[in-house]
């Protein structure tokens, strides 16, 4: 009959109207600036630099300024200057570090290619989306201080991926240690009587457990 569909439609909207007052399943709106929805783990937006230690982010950056990401970046939003000197990295090895590492987030398209090409797991995808700035030239140009975030933060964002990365790094370091030890042993055997036992490599810095960041 003409009009029955109309009444059905009215019933549907009435149900929605009433339901929105008592049924939290229907009424899913969050009041954004005050309360934030938990982003899905797979969400990714803009890269950041992983540092091992929250207290000394500049000292413990994983990045060795190899500039692969700079070359691969399709919109060319990364600018890196290598340091002249070397600093010990997390495993104590002397490494070059980035003296300048800038990402222009006005240009970045969050393609994640920098993350995929990085051999050191030093750059990962962030989950920020509130990068509004009043000055688009300096406000959206993030330098290494703004980009550096501790590994614990990475654990918080992407726990699965972070755990994998930590495992892999740990095995790699262990392998490197074994290798170094074997090499040292071989050297020692070859030298028969070295005047002094080479000092053992420094202990692997224990990776910080995924704790909530200080901030």
């Amino acid at each position, binding site marked *: 009959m*003409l009009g029955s569909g109309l009444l059905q439609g*009215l019933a549907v909207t009435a149900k*929605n109207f009433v*339901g929105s007052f008592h049924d939290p399943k*229907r*009424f899913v709106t969050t009041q954004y600036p005050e309360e934030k929805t938990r982003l899905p783990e797979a969400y990714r937006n803009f890269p950041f630099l992983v540092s091992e230690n929250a207290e000394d982010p500049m000292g413990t950056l994983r990045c060795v300024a190899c500039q692969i990401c700079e070359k691969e970046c399709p919109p060319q939003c990364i600018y890196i200057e290598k340091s002249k000197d070397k600093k010990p990295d997390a495993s104590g090895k002397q490494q070059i570090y980035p003296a300048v590492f800038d990402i222009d987030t006005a240009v970045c398209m969050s393609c994640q290619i920098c993350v995929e090409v990085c051999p050191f797991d030093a750059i990962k995808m962030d989950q920020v989306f509130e990068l509004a700035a009043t000055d688009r030239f300096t406000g959206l140009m993030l330098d290494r201080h703004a980009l550096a975030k501790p590994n614990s933060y990475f654990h918080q964002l992407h726990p699965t991926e972070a755990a994998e990365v930590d495992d892999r790094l740990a095995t790699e370091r262990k392998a490197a240690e074994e290798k170094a030890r074997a090499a040292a042993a071989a050297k020692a055997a070859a030298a028969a009587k070295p005047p002094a036992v080479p000092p053992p490599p420094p202990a692997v810095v224990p990776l910080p457990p995924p704790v909530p960041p200080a901030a």
Partner: protein
Amino acid sequence: MSAAATTSESFLERAPLLLRDAVTGFLPEPARWLANSLLSIVAVLAVFGLLFAFLTLAERKILGRVQNRPGPNRTGWFGLLQPFADGIKMLTKEDIVPRAADQLLHFLAPVTLLALSILTFAVIPYGRHLVPVELDSAVLYFFAAGAATELAIFMAGWASHNKYALLAAMRALAQLISYELPLLLSFVPVVLATGTLSTTGIVAAQGGWKWHLIPHWIVFTPWGAAGFAIFMVSALAESNRSPFDLPEAESELIAGHLTEYSGFKYALFFMAEYFGMCALSGMAVTLFLGGWQAPLPVLEFIPSYVWFAGKLLTLLLGFIWIRATLPRLRIDQLTRLAWKFLVPLALVNLGTAAFWSLTSAWSGPLQLLRWAVALVLVAGPFLLLGRGLTAGLGPRTYRYA
């Protein structure tokens, strides 16, 4: 506001009159009449201005809730200051007039529209003693003022010097003229039954109760219910409300005749649309829902204007509910509905009303026969015409390549 109140009525019922006399009572006679008229104009404008403001808020809140969102809730407590924020925004926006536009008509169109839609408020009885102007042919006045608004819409479309605006204005006119017919035809039975064109007379004719239970409202007769339905559907179209909001259809038709309007002129159009909706709802209350009459004798202690406001708000919420539910029609469906469905139904309804008033002396079992015949006369054409209207339509089947 006329008619002297008898002192036997409750204080609340007389409160508006007492208030008016307290303000203007000291004036000599001709000046007092002028002051009273001005006062009723100010009162109507203030009440409906505020109603407009909070109706926009209510509409946004209700639409939000229907779509499972909270609606505006930032400005003030529960968003109560939102209409004022909107008003300030509209006032401070740049007023753009196209260079090729007809400057004078471009300015006059919203002013004329708003003026004409405010004029329609003059004859609605808001309460037992609250009629701004009592006219012998008030209903005719109401629809004459309503019909003149079409001119303003045409002016808006033509003066914009924009082909889309002009086409939209033509489309709007086609719609308004089409729905004018069922709108006028649907209230003719009411005039036939009550024997008057005066709104106060029509409301007075609906007073009283049958068995102290069922009010003598026109909507409680078979032809009255049908007339009310036709009136409301036509009122939806006349006030450009969804699902008949083709004249502006901002999502498909770039806002129609309002394309070239911005800032405060746009706000005036918006206001006129809401005023038109309020006026048509008020007229529907007056014609079909018994005006300010209380539904039950025991509820008469509540003042009449409260009843009128309650009925008016119910209808307005119904408008919003329908807007939240129904998708927009296409222009050919729209005009077909008017010409092939509503107009014939309204004509048949006139016959039903004539039958009803001719058989008013029937009693006993004949009363049952009267109801049966009237119901058949109402439902039969509805079903037949409805089948014709929906013939060939059904659930859509999709064929994939």
